[in-house]
């Protein structure tokens, strides 16, 4: 009776499935050339260079904007970009930058000293995003135009790391921004989804939370290093699941992806046609103790935990793609020394310290807080839990949303016993990390240890004001040793930065000062076979 009905259903099903088989694509070819597809896990909510920065945002910002200088290479060096040269005054307070003459914005306007001045004024006055880097040393009025192509910065005090921050201060076109200003918002609303830059790329399709496309500027003022091979553009496509990312890479739907699991990288390395970029990074991992309150205020307990930790397992979590911290400063940072006697696993020593502590037999349970969804931090928590069983100390692993974790960590009273924190220094200057251990940093997420050592604070202040590198290097060496001695945290490891990309993708240029996942899009190109 229902034979026909069933047959129709089956037929309809077959029909549907045959229509739908879509061929797998390689990189995207368009009329203008090849478009590179980048698969990333993180969205770009706000493009405005003075409002936000995180790795995905800054990757595109770096593409569409230029700064006075730019970090390149490993180890990272500051290279002239919009500024072809610069000089510093004797007292280290005045910096004068001479701009290149041929740089122009995407709308054709020349990049002038006024544009630079306006950009810095904008960044400082909005007091968001990048403002923290310079606001203590530079007032908006401190930037002045000398002539069309010369701009002068007058700092409030000598500030050695000044130059190391400038690559992240992008220059916007004041004419465009002012034209789109609403209620004196410095064009914030407009720049959220638009750009007013002079960089090698301009915006293409912009579908927030889905994909963001940049198109290469054919007549970019600084030319293209890959010449005729320059891509037509780059699509940054959000693929949130590692499994989906891997699938996209294998199917050729993405040319480069970041954020696979460690094991995926190991696995996918064997796949022909896929290349793994594996570089030592600058992101430090530490388990911050609350040094002011609770059991972890006891230095002996902290030491005991530090000695009980299985450091090999930390590297194991990354399948070997990580290296242990030998100092609070990452290896790639200027002034880094290998601090002798930094704790490694030594259970006897751990028990010795534990005996000296207020809890000679353990019997306590400590909270370990990590950012919810951060896989490695969770796994390190498991390692910690496993290791501390030897000391009869329990670990309560608590995933928290980032804002909640930061909110709790901003006060001594609410800061957890242990918090896992990844920190990526914003520059290669040692101050970027050292200042985290300054008492002024209390309240910031990386200062959840509430580390308080007046000597260290004084040394940091002294080092950041000095312009003499040798003097600073010595100070930083002392700072590093003292911090290790006080053990405000378990010094963990530096994870490697990894990407997986198709072998035809060329021009990958690593620099440790960039954020995890961030890639310099400018030199990339596709080599067609």
């Amino acid at each position: 009776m229902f034979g026909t009905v069933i047959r129709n259903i089956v037929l309809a099903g077959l029909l549907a499935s045959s229509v739908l088989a879509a061929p797998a694509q390689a990189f995207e070819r368009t009329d203008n050339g090849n478009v590179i597809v980048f698969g990333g896990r993180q969205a770009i909510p706000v493009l405005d260079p003075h409002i936000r920065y995180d790795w995905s945002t800054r990757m595109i910002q770096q593409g569409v904007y230029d700064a006075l200088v730019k970090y390149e290479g490993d180890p990272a060096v500051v290279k002239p970009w919009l500024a072809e040269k610069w000089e510093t005054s004797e007292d280290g307070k005045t910096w004068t930058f001479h701009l290149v003459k041929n740089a122009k914005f995407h709308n054709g306007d020349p990049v002038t000293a006024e544009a630079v001045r306006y950009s810095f004024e904008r960044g400082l006055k909005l007091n968001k995003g990048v403002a923290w880097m310079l606001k203590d040393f530079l007032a908006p009025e401190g930037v002045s135009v000398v002539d069309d192509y010369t701009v002068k910065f007058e700092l409030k005090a000598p500030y050695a790391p000044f130059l190391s921050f400038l690559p992240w201060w992008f220059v916007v076109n004041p004419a465009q921004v002012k034209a789109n200003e609403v209620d004196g918002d410095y064009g914030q609303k407009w720049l959220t989804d638009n750009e007013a830059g002079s960089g090698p790329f301009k915006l293409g399709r912009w579908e927030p939370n889905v994909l963001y496309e940049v198109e290469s500027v054919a007549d970019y003022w600084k030319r293209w290093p890959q010449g005729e091979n320059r891509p037509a553009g780059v699509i940054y496509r959000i693929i949130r699941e590692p499994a989906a990312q891997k699938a996209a890479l294998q199917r050729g739907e993405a040319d480069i992806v970041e954020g696979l699991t460690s094991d995926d990288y190991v696995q996918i390395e064997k796949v022909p046609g896929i290349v793994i970029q594996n570089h030592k990074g600058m992101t430090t991992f530490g388990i911050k103790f609350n040094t002011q309150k609770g059991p972890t205020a006891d230095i002996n307990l902290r030491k005991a935990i530090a000695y009980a930790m299985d450091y090999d397992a930390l590297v194991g979590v990354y399948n070997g793609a990580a290296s242990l911290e030998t100092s609070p400063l990452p290896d790639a940072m200027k002034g880094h020394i290998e601090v002798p006697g930094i704790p490694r696993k030594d259970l006897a020593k751990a028990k010795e310290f534990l005996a000296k502590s207020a809890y000679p037999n353990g019997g306590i349970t400590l909270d370990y807080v990590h950012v919810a969804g951060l896989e490695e931090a969770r796994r390190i928590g498991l390692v910690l839990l496993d290791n501390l069983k030897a000391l009869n100390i329990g670990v309560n692993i608590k995933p928290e949303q980032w804002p909640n974790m930061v909110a709790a960590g901003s006060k001594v009273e609410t800061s957890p016993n242990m918090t896992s924190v990844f920190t990526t220094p914003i520059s290669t200057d040692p101050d970027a990390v050292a200042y985290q251990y300054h008492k002024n940093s209390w309240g910031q997420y990386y200062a959840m240890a509430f580390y308080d050592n007046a000597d260290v604070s004084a040394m940091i202040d002294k080092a950041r004001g000095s312009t003499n590198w040798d003097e600073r290097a010595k100070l930083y060496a002392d700072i590093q040793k003292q911090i290790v001695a006080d053990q405000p945290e378990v010094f963990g490891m530096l994870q490697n930065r990894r990407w997986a990309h198709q072998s035809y993708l060329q021009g990958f240029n690593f620099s440790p000062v960039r954020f995890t996942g961030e890639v310099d899009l400018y030199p990339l190109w596709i080599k067609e076979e």
Partner: protein
Amino acid sequence: MLTFTLRKLLTVAGTMLGIAVLTFVITNIAPGDPARLVAGPNATEDMVATIRTEYGLDRPMIEQFAIYMKDLVTGDFGTSIVSTRPVLDELLRYAPATIELVLVAMLLGIFVGVPLGMLSAVYKDGPIDHFTRILSISGVAIPAFWFGILMQLYFSVDLGWLPVSGRLPLVTRPPEFITGSLLIDSLLAGNFKTFNTALSYIILPAIVLSFPCLASILRVNRAEMIEVLQSDYIVAARAHGISSRRIVICYALKNALLPTLAMIGLRFGWMLGSTVLVETVFDWPGIGLYAVSSALASDFKPVIGVTLLIGFLFIITNTLVDLAYAWIDPRLRRA
């Protein structure tokens, strides 16, 4: 009729207001500080304060609530602190994708579920019935996210038949924005290639989303069919010599469709909720994904917005179901 419509509108408005209050209260129990998140990791205290002031987060909760409610009445859903855009704009951008997905899934659920339910009721305890019974119970029991991943791996990775995730290939220009539904827009533009491509992208998430819905539609329809088929008027129809085929397809199905309709209305809301999971798995840029990412960032204005929108759609659907009820059931027409 006018008073009826007015009363209905008032109920909807009241419910919406209730949802707004409910979600506002729920989302503000938290100690989270979204301002700190968007200020960036290195921001100083005064930078965070700048953002807090900008978004009114420094005001007392009651005041924030009053402001929110006042804005809501004028159609302003507030501003997302993470993306700095008005929530309404974002909702309008993401909603079509979700609605398209849910509708396709719904159609799939109805057009597979109802006939299968009918068949298994007619051939009760036969092989078809056993098959659909397994199908329906599995459908409700299977974790959608797990099923989604399995489907992705099999159909996309192993077989390579269907795309993994997203709505369209990367360089395919979407058709001109008319309704926001790629399927409809591409048809309106007469672009069948884009239509086919968009279809190939929607098929997996739609199947995963519709599976539980299909299962419950099937189940309800089967149960109702069985009951209707045993009812007196079907016995009478059989006794009056009407053919089995006509009894099942015409008489019984129409009666069994009423509770099925109610289930469809319920499941519609349920599917809107499950988009939270399915959109995450398939990277479907809809309101579910928007809600998840906002919730994880403690950015609550979008969460309230999404909840309101889902609630609104749900109420609208149920009103439509009520209308359909009245259309099918003459007994309700004059009430």
